[in-house]
């Protein structure tokens, strides 16, 4: 027995807990009563406690039959940090179809299913619980150097000082635009989270839209995620954090399972759910932004590294999510209160613009708006822009208040939780990102100015004028 073997055995499964992230596919062997072995790959082995693991039961037809006859299994696991390999000798204990272990495993299975949109067919049937009777280290290449371990999570974990500093910065923010900007920059400066997205829930509670991001080629403002789809959508649907450290493996597995289902005709051809963020992300944490128990949005942090985030990072981001969610909701409430008593806007004449005109094409059916043929935005934000430009063209108006925009019946805003400030912030950021000839500038609390630097050619398709 090597010292490593002894250490692993004495500490049980907690000593090898890194193996349970699923970065390297596990392998399981079982045997039938007549002594015929069966060996197959596993997408994930779930740690239950220091002595037990759980395996998801979806396709284990032969494995399940073997276990009914001969309740023993042998599993290979690889630690994705130091690439130590372990062989576990397991004895089947029980099958669970409800309870916390089942729910945890179901979360994993649902996350895989959500990548390719097959939640309707790819579901956890049961969680099989095994007791571990032996842990054996079977790493080879002993003379080879141990690869350098990860430098730890990219964030600094439970950094109370960083959290205090970020909270103080958020407390000084005067509007939503500042809140999301300060959060994104603070996460990078104070904790080292270099790839970050903030998404807000839409008025109908069905979609999330990206309002701010950092660390991507393009800011991606306005990209959307349907609630319940993908890791981000699931964090929103469950109002609970989601953390994965093996996105590439999950995506590969999900694509293959989907192809298999398509082959049987159980589901038709589909596609991978597009997700804003890093195309080659391997780790992702998505935490809900909560206020008064209600979902406001989702904060997402990503990395190209495997298992880049740990429990401390998730806890830190969850705390930040609560602070940010409450701050956003408080800002919205304050804006609504102030606008109820706001003075009418001062108006300024639109400057005369010459030269090449910018063509704005608007589709009333969904609010899709294009500038010179390039997509800009859709939905409420698109309708807001169309309304503003219409007034600019007909009345020469450039100064507006949120209140008068909110009262515009053509926008069809809901009476409650209209998120107008969020939509204006989204619109402002999209116009900035595009370097458009139309910009929005804040001129005070609940006030803004439309800055247009070219002549406009407005083309509405079934649009109100």
């Amino acid at each position, binding site marked *: *027995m090597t010292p490593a073997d002894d250490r692993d055995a004495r500490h049980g499964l907690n000593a090898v807990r890194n193996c349970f992230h699923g970065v390297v596919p596990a392998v399981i*062997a079982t045997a039938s009563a*007549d*002594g015929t072995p069966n*060996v197959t790959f596993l997408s994930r082995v779930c740690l239950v406690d220091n002595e037990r693991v759980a395996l998801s039961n979806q396709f284990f037809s032969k494995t399940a039959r073997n276990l009914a006859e001969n309740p023993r299994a042998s599993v290979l696991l*690889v630690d994705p940090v130091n690439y130590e390999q372990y062989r576990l000798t397991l004895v089947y204990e029980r099958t669970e179809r409800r309870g916390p272990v089942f729910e945890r495993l179901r979360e994993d299975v649902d996350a895989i299913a959500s990548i390719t949109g097959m939640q309707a067919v790819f579901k956890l049937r049961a969680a099989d619980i095994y*007791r571990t*009777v032996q*842990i054996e280290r079977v*790493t080879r290449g002993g003379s080879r150097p141990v690869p350098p371990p990860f430098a730890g999570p990219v964030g600094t974990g439970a950094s109370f000082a960083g959290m205090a500093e970020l909270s103080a910065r958020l407390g000084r923010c005067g509007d939503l635009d500042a809140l999301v900007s300060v959060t994104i920059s603070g996460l990078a400066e104070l904790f080292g989270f270099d790839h970050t997205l903030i998404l807000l829930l839409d008025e109908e509670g069905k979609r999330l839209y990206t309002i701010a991001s950092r660390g991507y080629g393009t800011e991606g403002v306005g990209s959307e995620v349907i609630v319940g789809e993908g890791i981000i959508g699931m964090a929103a649907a469950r109002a609970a954090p989601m953390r994965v450290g093996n996105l590439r493996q999950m995506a590969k597995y999900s694509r293959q399972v989907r192809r298999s289902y398509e082959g049987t005709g159980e589901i038709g051809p589909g596609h991978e759910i597009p997700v804003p963020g890093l195309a080659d992300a391997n780790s992702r944490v998505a935490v809900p932004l909560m206020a008064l128990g209600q979902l406001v949005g989702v904060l997402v942090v990503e990395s190209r590294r495997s298992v880049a985030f740990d429990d401390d990072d998730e806890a830190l981001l969850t705390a930040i999510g609560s602070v940010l969610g409450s701050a956003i909701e408080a800002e919205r409430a304050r804006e609504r209160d102030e606008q109820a008593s706001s003075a009418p806007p001062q108006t300024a004449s639109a400057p005369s613009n010459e030269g090449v005109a910018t063509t704005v094409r608007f589709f009333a059916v969904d609010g899709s708006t294009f500038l010179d043929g390039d997509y800009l935005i859709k939905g409420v934000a698109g309708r807001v822009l169309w309304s503003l430009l219409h007034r600019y063209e007909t009345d020469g108006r450039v100064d507006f208040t949120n209140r008068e925009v909110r009262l515009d019946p053509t926008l069809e805003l809901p009476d409650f939780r209209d998120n107008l400030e969020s939509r204006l912030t989204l619109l402002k950021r999209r116009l900035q990102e595009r370097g458009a000839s139309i910009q929005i500038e804040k001129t005070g609390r609940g006030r803004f100015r439309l800055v247009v630097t070219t002549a406009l050619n407005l083309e509405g398709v079934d649009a109100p004028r």
Partner: protein
Amino acid sequence: MSDIGGQSVVDGVSVAVMGASRGSSPAPWERRVRRPRHREAPWDFSPRKASATFAKKFLTAISGEFGAVIDAETVRMIESDVSLVVGLVDGSGAPIVSRACGLNVLDANAGTVRLLLDAEDAPALAELVHGAVIALTTGNVRTHEAKQFKGHVVSIEAATPADNARAAQYYDDFCRVVEESDGIERAAVERLIPTRFVACLIAFDEMFDQTPGPGAGAPIEGET
């Protein structure tokens, strides 16, 4: 090896490995037909049934009557950069999982392959004897497509220089695809590479689709 939680531990196995002094005891691969040993099996493990099934499979296989025909596409696949894992069963009926280190198909029509295994994996090697039933699963690193082959061990031999070169080539290919597909550096994968190998001649007589999905575990018809 050791135990945890006060539970019973699979019997320790002492085996000779390539290059080690074996004294007068035969090496594991020099032992003859495996007899399932009924040590402790409170569950439904039946040595008699196991012996009968094994004998049937072994006799039909050595007669050449039912050897698996491995088609050209499958040959190309299993000789490439796929992940290779094997399942064996010890004398008490307990399964043992291990990794393989490359293979060559010797006769596609007879379903015979020369499989390279870790010479330091004592528990697996202890069961790798003439006639032992073995399962091999090959997994495509890029797509997770997988196939499982089941058959029996015909012979175990010391690895030749050609075998060592084959293993080196296999790990070159495997490390490359893992790095491309999963972003895992070669230095990390090298931690899993054995330093010594044994060669195992296997005759396969069954093939299964092991690709994850609703069809996982289905026999591949027309090839057995």
